[in-house]
């Protein structure tokens, strides 16, 4: 099955296997899937799960723009991204990005670029719920402390190793 568009946000658990099953293209020799998953600890604290919130209209539009730009830049056959909103338990997928291209280098590069931009730009936030009952909004993009501009970001995928 060929699928090139899925809702950018989902309040239901992400169907990682189903998304991959729909992400094959006869012109694509490479399909890359990234699943960002909830860790059970962060900075030494045991994490019960995360709760994601989004400003949905802008998040959906921004993710669509990011995918479209990546599709054009890397000549992707398929570019899909879906992010969870609501509560996500440790071990579950919070975001999935799938890219398919003729060769693997483009699919890998595009995939990294897409997840970088979603993490830095899309109005989506996580609140960590710890096992001790406390919670904290956190892991915010902090690029402005380097760039001096809250609209300018530093993408890991563009940094030299």
């Amino acid at each position, binding site marked *: 099955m060929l699928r090139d568009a899925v809702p950018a946000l989902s309040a239901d658990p992400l169907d990682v296997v189903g998304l991959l099953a729909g992400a094959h293209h006869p012109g694509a020799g490479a399909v890359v899937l990234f699943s*960002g998953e909830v860790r059970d600890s962060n900075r030494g604290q045991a994490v019960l799960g995360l709760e*994601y*919130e*989004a*400003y949905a*209209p*802008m998040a959906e*539009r921004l993710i669509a723009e990011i995918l479209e730009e990546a599709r054009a830049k890397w000549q992707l056959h398929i570019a899909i991204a879906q*992010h969870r909103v609501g509560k996500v338990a440790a071990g579950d997928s*919070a*975001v999935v990005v799938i890219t398919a291209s003729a060769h693997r280098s483009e699919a890998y590069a595009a995939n990294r670029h897409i*997840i970088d931009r*979603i*993490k*830095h*730009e*899309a*109005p*989506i*936030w*996580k*609140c960590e719920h710890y096992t001790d009952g406390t919670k904290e*909004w*956190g*892991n*915010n*993009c*902090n690029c*402005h402390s380097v760039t001096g501009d*809250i*609209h300018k970001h530093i993408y890991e995928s563009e940094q030299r190793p």
Partner: protein
Amino acid sequence: MKIHVYAGLKDYFQPEFELREEIANTDELRAVLVKINGNAGPLLSTCRFAVEEGFIDKNFKLNSHDTVVIIPPSSGG
């Protein structure tokens, strides 16, 4: 002017509220909000602002009919 806030800003403000003051731009809006709750200052200094689902900068002229969405730094993924 209607204000919508998200994520960590909800620790300082109601998710939606209204301001009656004349506010011309995002710098003035930030100052008004800091007066309401000074503890929000550090987070507000890192926030982006949006009107009609588009980011705006400090030169954008706000008017009293706008709904302004205040967007803390992203932390998705």
